[in-house]
């Protein structure tokens, strides 16, 4: 019972905030509403007993990614008079059609068997010993060790790539001359 009540409260907050993200004129307000969405979804994770997922949601998405969004917005400045004309024609109808297709797909999938085999994402949480955190850790470092390591290598490659791109070489380039002149 309490689960249903919390679900409806948090889901309506999440939906309203999500609408706000799209409709707010000020990008900083949009970013803040995005944080609201992420946190209310984290609460939904908690009532599903997925505490680790909730913590990671708040730490990674709210604590790091949206902070970087805000960083960029703040450093580039907020332009209140942004033009609303679209450079790509027919963007809106295509977006609406694609959105409806995705919605239909989600509704279709929700009623059927998942491709990964589990009927519900929730089922296996009640089986086995240890808390949610321990179980996630165990499957991450046994069954899914290989994908986990590959993802780690991918992220390291991305970090090194961005460092290489951002680092200036000793030789002056055209950009440097423009900067100094």
């Amino acid at each position: 019972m309490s689960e249903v009540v919390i679900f409806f409260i948090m889901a309506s907050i999440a939906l309203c905030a999500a609408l706000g993200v799209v409709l707010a004129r000020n990008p900083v307000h949009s970013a803040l509403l995005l944080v609201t969405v992420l946190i209310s979804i984290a609460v939904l994770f908690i009532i599903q007993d997925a505490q680790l997922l909730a913590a990671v949601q708040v730490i990674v998405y709210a604590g790091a990614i949206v902070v970087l969004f805000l960083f960029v917005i703040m450093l580039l400045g907020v332009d209140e008079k942004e033009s609303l004309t679209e450079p790509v024609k027919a963007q809106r109808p295509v977006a609406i059609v694609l959105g409806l297709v995705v919605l239909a797909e989600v509704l279709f999938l929700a009623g059927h068997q998942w491709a990964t085999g589990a009927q519900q994402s929730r089922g296996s949480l009640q089986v086995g010993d240890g808390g949610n955190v321990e179980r996630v850790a165990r499957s991450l470092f046994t069954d899914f060790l290989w994908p986990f390591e590959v993802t780690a290598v991918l992220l390291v490659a991305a970090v090194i790539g961005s460092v290489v791109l951002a680092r200036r070489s000793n030789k002056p380039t055209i950009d440097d001359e423009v900067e100094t002149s």
Partner: protein
Amino acid sequence: MTAPQSLAAGDPLFAGGVDPAVVLILIIKTVAAFALLMVLVLFYIWFMRKVIADMQNRVGPARAGGRYGVLQTLADGIKLFFKEQSVPDGADPFVFRLAPYLSIIPAFLAFSIIPIGGEVSILGHTTYLQLADPAIGVLLLLAMSGIGLYGVMLAGWSSGSKYPLLGSVRASAQLLSYEAAFGLAIVAVLLHSGTLSTRGIVDAQAWTSWDSFATSWYWTVAFVSFVIFLIAAIAETNHPPFDLVEAEQELVGGFVTEYTGIRFAMFFLAEFMNLITMSAIAVTLFLGGPSGPALGFLSATGTVNTWLMPMFWFFTKLLVLLFGTVWVRASLPRMRYDQLMDLGWKWLIEIAFVAVMVTAVVLVARNEAWNRFVVVPAAIGGAFCLLGILRLCMPRQSELIEEEV
């Protein structure tokens, strides 16, 4: 009605379901934790001013509340409360008003996971002397310091002027940089304890004999991580010598420049609440939390040994660390911004990372019963080799300066 598993995971309070007494106990605990944190902040600010005054041969606060000025902080708080609150013309009014709350609420929530005492019974229910014991434990601390960052960032941005913006950009960069070293320092403890829950970590460091001081508390086995944790924690809370966020010679007042009255006081309060929470977390993770010798001549289940002694040990350890922060504040000059970034990225993260690897190797060696006299020196030697290689790969300071010219 049964409590969700997420709540029932730790605290024995929820073992028998939720009834009105349990709700009452929870409300009492919440109010008590909040009041405790407030009193600790009031005490700490007074303590800090007194100790620094002593170190500098001054008297310090001496008027409000008797000879020792005990009520000075309260008087300052009341003064700030009655001051006019202004919102600058160029500000974003809603975000400007919201920012102080975004700063102070996470600061309190992070404190809720601190185990202050052992297991006690209130109104016939057994419970832990800590507000919450979630399964995610210390991850809550990291999440809350992530949310607390919004308060600082938005305060600077919404003020609509340049110095606050620069201050908040500095603050965010500093927090993001030191969060990595901070998290890695915690990982070493988590590897030892095998649990995220603060209660579990404290239980793993329980007091058995006087040897526990060196053998079961983690400050010895994870000494490198302990030092890194303390440095990174001070940097995370923007306290001296890392208080570049409000370097008044460079930035006027940093992100709080435009704030007045109680809103300013809330930022101030949040900052000190964070410092106290960080010190309390250091006590929990590395110094055994409330564990310490009980009074042997009294009954082990009596009020003194279940309520008072654990709290006594907790607050004693907390006081030692808090004195350390005051000492650092009085002794060290503020760092330069490039020194701050060098320390964070080029030293702390590397060393913390290597310390985690050494810890992992030592723990595996212990589980597999390998010869520790071979494995431990080999792991430490390997760590130094790795650090040396990393050092050699870094560009030297002279090269960097050449590049910039």
